[in-house]
C-alpha cells in the first residue's frame, strides 16, 4: 500500500481535519509505441496527509518530486488516478465536476508564475470580478466594492483597479493573485510556489501578508515550495516529498531540530549555516533522483540513502509515528515504534 508518512497527528489531536488526503496517486501515461503498453510517470504515488483548520501545511521537495502535481490534483485541475480527498468529511474526488463547482469556492489556488497567471488583456478590476461573476456572487456594484476592499486588503489601492497586469511588479501581481483567490472567501488556499518567482525582500513582504490574511480570513494553507527557509517561516507543519512520496511529516520545529528521514537530514544539512562558528556536518547525497517512470523497488530513497539496508531494497517502509506529531517512512526507525 502506501509508502508514505501520514500526518494524522496534529497539534490539536482531537479536532477533525478540514482536508484529509488519503493515498493520492497521480500517474501520467506515456506512449512508448503503437504496440507497447503505456508506461506511467508516477508523479504522485500514494500520499496521505491532513490539513487542520487554520493551519499552514508546508510541502517541500526538490523539483519534479510531485508537490505541484499533488496540489493540482487536490483541486481536481488534473483528475486523480486514485485516492480520496475528504473535505469536511465529503470525498470531493467522487463528486461530479458540476457538483465540485460548489467546493471550488472554498478550495482556491495561488499559482507560481505571477507573470502569466493573470490575463494580460484584462484589467485588474475585471480579473478580480471575474471570479465572483462565475459564481454569481453579488450585483455588479457589490462586486466592484468588494474588489476595491480586497485590493486594499492585499496592500494595493483602488487606483490599481483599471490597470493592466503588465503595469505591476511581480510582488504586486502575486498580491493580485492572492486577492483573486480571496474573492471567493475560500477555506483552503493551495499556494503553489507562490513566492519562488519573487526576490528575497519581496518574498518576505508577501509571506507576511499571507500570514496576516490567514488570521483575518481564518484560512488554511497548503504551502508548496522548494525553499526550506520560506517553508520554515510560514508553516506550522511540514511534509517532505521525494519522488512522489511523502517521506516525513513533522511540526516545523521538530523537522528542523531533529529530522529523522535520511533524505530530510540531507536536505536540512544543505542549508547554509547562519552561525559560522557552529560546526555542521554536511551530508552529501550522490547520484541523481531516479526516474518516476521506473521508481526503485522498496523504499524510493534506497538508491541514494547513506544508511540503506537490505530490507530497504525489498520492502516499502510504512509511515511510523516517531513521537506525537512526527511521522516518517523509514526502516531505520522500525524498533523505535
Amino acid at each position, binding site marked *: 500500500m502506501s509508502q508514505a508518512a501520514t500526518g494524522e497527528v496534529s497539534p490539536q489531536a482531537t479536532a477533525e481535519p478540514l482536508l484529509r488526503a488519503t493515498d493520492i496517486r497521480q500517474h501520467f501515461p506515456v506512449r512508448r509505441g503503437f504496440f507497447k503498453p503505456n508506461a506511467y510517470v508516477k508523479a504522485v504515488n500514494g500520499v496521505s496527509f491532513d490539513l487542520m483548520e487554520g493551519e499552514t501545511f508546508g510541502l517541500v521537495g526538490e523539483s519534479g518530486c510531485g508537490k505541484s502535481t499533488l496540489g493540482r490534483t487536490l483541486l481536481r485541475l488534473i483528475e486523480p488516478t486514485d485516492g480520496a480527498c475528504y473535505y469536511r468529511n465529503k470525498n470531493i474526488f467522487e463528486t461530479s465536476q458540476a457538483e465540485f463547482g460548489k467546493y471550488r469556492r472554498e478550495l482556491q489556488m495561488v*499559482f507560481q508564475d505571477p507573470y502569466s497567471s493573470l490575463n494580460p488583456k484584462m484589467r485588474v478590476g475585471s480579473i478580480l470580478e471575474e471570479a465572483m461573476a462565475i459564481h454569481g456572487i453579488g450585483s455588479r456594484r457589490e462586486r466592484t466594492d468588494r474588489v*476595491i476592499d480586497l485590493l486594499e486588503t492585499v496592500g494595493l489601492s*483602488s487606483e490599481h483597479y483599471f490597470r493592466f497586469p503588465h503595469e505591476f511588479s511581480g510582488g504586486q501581481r502575486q498580491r493580485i493573485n492572492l486577492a483573486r483567490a480571496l474573492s471567493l472567501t475560500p477555506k483552503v488556499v493551495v499556494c503553489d510556489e507562490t513566492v519562488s518567482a519573487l526576490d528575497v525582500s519581496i518574498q518576505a513582504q508577501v509571506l507576511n501578508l499571507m500570514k496576516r490574511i490567514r488570521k483575518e480570513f481564518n484560512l488554511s494553507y497548503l504551502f508548496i515550495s522548494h525553499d526550506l527557509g520560506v517553508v520554515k517561516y510560514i508553516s506550522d507543519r511540514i511534509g517532505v516529498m521525494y519522488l512522489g512520496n511523502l517521506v516525513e511529516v513533522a511540526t516545523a520545529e521538530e523537522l528542523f531540530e531533529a529530522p529523522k528521514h535520511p533524505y530530510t537530514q540531507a536536505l536540512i544539512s544543505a542549508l547554509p549555516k547562519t552561525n559560522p562558528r557552529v560546526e555542521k556536518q554536511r551530508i552529501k547525497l550522490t547520484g541523481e533522483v531516479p526516474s518516476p517512470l521506473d521508481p526503485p523497488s522498496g523504499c524510493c530513497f534506497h538508491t541514494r540513502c547513506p544508511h540503506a539496508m537490505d530490507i530497504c531494497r525489498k520492502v516499502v517502509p510504512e509511515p511510523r509515528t516517531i513521537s506525537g506529531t512526527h511521522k516518517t517512512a523509514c526502516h531505520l526507525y522500525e524498533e523505535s515504534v
Partner: protein
Amino acid sequence: MTDTTQTPKELKAAENRLKREQRSLMIRRFMANRLAVCGLGLTVVICLIAFLGPLITQHEPLKVNPIDRLKPPSREHWMGTDNFGRDIYVRVLYGTRASLLIGFSVALLSSVIGVTIGLYSAYFKPLDHLLMRITDGLMAFPAILLAISVIAVFGPTTQNVILTLVVVYTPLIARVVRSNALVVKEQPYIEALHALGSSTTRIIWRHIFPNTVSSLIVQASFVFAVSIITEAMLSFLGVGIPAPHPSLGNILYDGKNVITSAWWMTVFPGAIIIGIVLGQNILGDGLRDFLDPHTNKAVSKR
C-alpha cells in the same frame, strides 16, 4: 494616492475617462502606422466609388445599345463601351459592388465559422483530430477546382459563389485561430480560471477568443482579398456571377476577345481588382503590425 475609498459612481466616471483616453491613443497609434492608413484609404476610396459612382451617370449596367459598340473612352462613356454597347464605367462599378459584397460576406461568414471551429478544436482534443483532418482535406484541393465543382453541382448564383468560397476559405481561418488558441489554452491564467470554477464556454469565448482576434482580423482581410480574386476567376471561367449581371470577372472575359482592339474593356476592371486586393493586403499587413507589435514588421521582412 491619498484618497483610497472611491464610490462606484466615481469609479464609473474614471472608467469612462480611461476608455476615452485609450480610444484617442489607439487612433493616434493607428494613424502613425502609414501602411495601414494607406490600405484603409485605398479600400475606402474604392468602396465610395463603387457605391456613389453610379449616381453621377445616366447609364444602366444592363442596357444594350448596339450602335455604340466598342467605343473608346469619351465624354459620354467614361470608360468606353463593350461589345454590346453597354457602358463599361457603370458595369465596372456594379461589378465592384458585387465583388465587395462577396468579399465581405465571405470574410465575415468564414470568420464566424472558422473561429468556432478553431476555438473548439483547440480546446477539445478528440474534436481536434476530426475537424483538423476535415480542414486538411479541404485545403488539399486547389481552391478554384473545389469551387468550380461545387458550383457545377448547385448552379452559378451569387449565394452559391459566396457559400462555395466560405467552404474554401474557412479552413484558413480555422487553422490560424486554432494555433493561437492552442498557445493561449496552456497559459497559467486559463488554469487559474479552471481553479476558479469557470465554465468552458466562458473560458473559450471570454478568455481565449480575445487573444486570437488580432491574427483573425489579419487573416480575414486576407480572405477578403483572395475571395475577390477567386470570384473574378470564377466569373471569368463562366461559373461565377451569371452572365448579364456585371462582375469584374465576366467583364474581363468579354474583353478577352477584343483585347487588341478595345484595351479599355480589360484595363479598367483589371485596375479595380488590383486596387481592391492591393488595398486589402496592405491593410492586412498594417493591421498585423498594429495589433501585434511583437512580430517583425511586415515591411522589414521584404
